[in-house]
């Protein structure tokens, strides 16, 4: 796929264009109450070593027992990625020494992962969609955490994360720009959140990515890749790709060659640094974990899980476009966050009265989203209820208030009357739009007679109409129906 380089994606070097090739290994913490192979809790933010079982601490004679909920979550995720579910998979030991790895090996899946190939459709921009292939998804244990800042002479180990279930989701090298990589991770996170299989909180480390970057001249075979380890925000993923691609292009243009190695991204300095070369790479001595039988389940089990899968973003977007007549862009923005999409639907469906979904979408993705952003909250977590947005839209649609007044009503809902019913607010505060043409005509007449010079100008230059509209609205306290004002002015000014 993507065998022909897209010119707009290319990076200009001093000696010509380069194409960047990106593949991602995303580590997503499985949402589950207990760890992958022990009954210890997975709660974030506990006291160090509060959530550690005998198995997690690798006490002598302890044995892992698979947590079925983690298996179900991996299957759900595989289904959400349109991927092949392997009815038989095998856990392997990945052996290496590290103080925060109590067993001296990580239980992972090497040759036989639980999920095989799949595909994710990614919106790079309102007009550009790409497909990113999924190579595999496997289950593995997280390691603990070494704390080096507690004492000048000693390091401490916190095993709370030790044994927590991770899904490693490996993409194919299908991305060709930092934007595509960012959009892919964003989409992946959306899917995981819809499924409820990973909370996607990158700040808490629930989602991290190893980024594989290589560059090549358009049309050439893949270049040598470097792996940037453990990048923990979508913004940093983009930055890391950009600086790493530049670094590699620089080396190639100077006649050098890229060494396959593992690198770290330093967001403060905006550079990647070598962590270890291919020669220094660990020999993990993978072999099947003899403490665990192969993981086997039947198709009926997979089908049962598939039957309870929630509607996923792509399906929801398609439905919003079809059922509500929303443009692709609006639908895309709404479904990017499941709660926002639900919020929108609740507002559209509130009560028995039909209302314009596009108008609702405008408010949700416009003023409400802006307010939510100012608080750093998702739309659904603000105090503004979908019913209030429904009420507001109804008031506009039946001509009770103008769009401008509606903004004032929303400001009141945000501020002094948080639970207020928009219609009650409008009534109580006399914000009703004046549609009485008599009253509007009186105001129009007054303005015309007070400004004969402007009237003359307007006859020559019809865009002056806006000035008159403004004056009338001012005089009526903004409550005049703008449409009626426009019509009357045009008539009386003869334009």
């Amino acid at each position, binding site marked *: 796929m993507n065998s022909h380089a897209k010119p707009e994606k290319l990076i200009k070097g001093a000696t010509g264009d380069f194409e960047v090739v990106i593949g991602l290994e995303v580590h997503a913490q499985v949402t589950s109450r207990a760890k992958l192979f022990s009954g210890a809790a997975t709660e974030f933010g506990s006291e160090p070593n509060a959530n550690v079982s005998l198995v997690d601490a690798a006490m002598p*004679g302890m*044995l892992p027992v698979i947590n079925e909920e983690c298996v179900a979550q991996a299957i759900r995720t595989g289904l959400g990625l349109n991927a092949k579910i392997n009815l038989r998979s095998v856990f392997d030991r990945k*052996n290496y020494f590290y103080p925060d790895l109590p067993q*001296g090996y990580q239980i992972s899946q090497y040759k036989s992962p639980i999920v095989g190939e799949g595909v994710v459709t990614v919106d790079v921009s309102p007009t550009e969609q790409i497909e990113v292939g999924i190579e595999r998804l496997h289950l593995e244990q997280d390691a603990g955490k070494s704390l080096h800042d507690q004492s000048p002479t000693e390091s401490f180990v916190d095993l709370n994360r030790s044994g927590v279930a991770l899904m490693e989701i490996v993409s194919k090298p299908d991305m060709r720009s930092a934007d595509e990589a960012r959009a892919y991770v964003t989409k992946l996170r959306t899917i995981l959140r819809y499924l409820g299989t990973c909370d996607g909180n990158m700040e808490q480390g629930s989602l991290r990515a190893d980024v594989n970057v290589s560059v090549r001249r358009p049309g050439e075979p893949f270049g040598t890749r470097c792996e940037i380890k453990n990048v923990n925000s979508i913004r940093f993923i983009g930055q890391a790709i950009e600086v790493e691609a530049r670094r590699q292009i620089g080396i190639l243009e100077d006649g050098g060659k890229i060494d396959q190695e593992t690198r770290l991204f330093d967001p403060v300095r905006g550079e990647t640094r070598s962590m270890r070369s291919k020669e220094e790479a660990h020999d993990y*001595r993978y072999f099947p974990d003899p*403490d665990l039988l192969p993981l086997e389940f039947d198709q009926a089990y997979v089908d049962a899980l598939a039957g309870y899968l929630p509607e996923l973003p792509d399906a929801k977007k398609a439905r919003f476009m079809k059922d509500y007549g929303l443009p692709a862009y609006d639908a895309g923005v709404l479904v990017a966050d499941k709660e926002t999409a639900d919020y929108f639907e609740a507002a559209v469906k509130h009560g028995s009265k039909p209302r314009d979904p596009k108008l609702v979408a405008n408010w949700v993705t416009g003023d409400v989203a802006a307010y939510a952003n100012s608080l750093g909250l998702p739309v659904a977590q603000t105090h503004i209820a979908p019913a209030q947005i429904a009420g507001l839209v109804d008031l506009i649609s039946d001509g009770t208030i103008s769009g401008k007044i509606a903004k004032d009503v929303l400001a009141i809902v945000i501020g002094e009357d948080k639970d207020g019913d928009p219609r009650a607010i409008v009534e109580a505060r006399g914000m009703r739009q004046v549609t009485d043409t008599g009253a509007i005509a009186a105001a129009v007449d007054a303005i015309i007679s007070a400004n004969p010079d402007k009237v003359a100008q307007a006859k020559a230059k019809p865009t002056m109409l806006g000035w008159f509209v403004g004056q009338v609205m001012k005089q009526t306290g903004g409550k005049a129906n703008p449409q009626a004002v426009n019509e009357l002015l045009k008539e009386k000014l003869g334009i």
Partner: protein
Amino acid sequence: MTELTDLTLADARDALARKKFSAVELTEAHIRAIEQAKVLNAFILETPEKARAMAAQSDERIARGAARPLDGIPLGIKDLYCTEGVATTAASRILEGFVPPYESTVTANLWRDGAVMLGKLNLDEFAMGSSNETSFYGPVISPWRRAGAETPLVPGGSSGGSAAAVAAGLCFGATATDTGGSIRQPAAFTGTVGIKPTYGRCSRWGIVAFASSLDQAGPIARNVRDAAILLRSMAGHDPKDTTSVDAPVPDYEASVGRSIKGLRIGIPKEYRIDGMPAEIEALWQQGIEWMKAAGATIAEISLPHTRYALPAYYIVAPAEASSNLARYDGVRYGLRVPGKDMVELYENTRAAGFGKEVRRRILIGTYVLSAGYYDAYYVRAQKIRTLIKRDFETAFADGVDAILTPATPSAAFGLGEKGSADPVEMYLNDIFTVTVNMAGLPGIAVPAGTSAEGLPLGLQLIGRAFDEETLFAVAHVIEQSAPKVALPPRWWV
């Protein structure tokens, strides 16, 4: 009168029930015997106070008619089983100071049934050895001596402390573990009965792991009936060990004494190895005659991949061990020898904490799993394992009910006699036993006679998966047919 410690487990159990003596009296007799037998070095840790307390509880239950199957029976526990609040060493310096806050499932099952713990028994370090000479706590001396000689002999290994303690009358039975023959070889060397049940029959939870796909718990006892009684209590499904099997545990004792008339006993021709001592060959032939006499039919069978079993075993077992022993790093428990950085701490701790044989096997295991060698060694060994399994399946599918072989290629040898120059010399001890672990089948060693020098010799029976009952029935026939092997004279008292 006979000493209390000379009774069989079954007799002691019945006498306790009839209140001929108390559990406390029985335990005191064993504590005294252990005191007198320190020279054997069978125990790493004695727990007399715990034993007295447990015995008192047994007496209390017996008194009110609530006796459990093993109430008041004093046992020794191989120090590979984690015991709550009681130091557990695996006979390794690296576990110095380690006191488990948990009890292994198998020992918990024994205590549930009323058994009394006398202490922790010596073994080869991490169960790696066939003579009990690799223990950090020193070798175990066999209670057996060659006729007219005082040369100290090995009790076999790795469950050398278990076998020696049972043979010397220090306990009625002992837990043991068997990865390549560690129950059956020491049982054969000491004239005791040892059964390695089917893989998955007993839980491995709480037993320090050597090679997870081969390790299995089992008892060593003074006769077949006692072994059957102990296995019934030890066995059972454990949700904490996913390789343990959820199948009901039969009343094994009921199969002791069952007729073997009409059973087909397989004799594998590949077990007739070069250089096998004539007395072993004769013992095997004698066993065949006993089988015939009891109404069984004899079938010559072929297990063609037998000769690859030992080399394949010495790839698979060290590979798993190298990974299982990675957790002993000086970070969380046991020995820590500091260093200037983390790597040095690992190196110092593991160099000081592991003995030579353990280090050798970790190195072998690390090597065979390394990139570039994995396919040549580990993968091929696993293929051989599959073929060995298939050999047995074919034999059993052809109607064989049990397979009779020698248990060991020789009688017990002297301390320091074997393996010091060439470890393979020691590894060859397992030649008849490893195939059983590789195939996951049950195997029992039962005393069948004595060598020219008066040392015990054993035969091995191999059964179908989860058919330990047939093994007990056939082993009992051998026990009944063979000349009585008395307990060794107490030269240490």
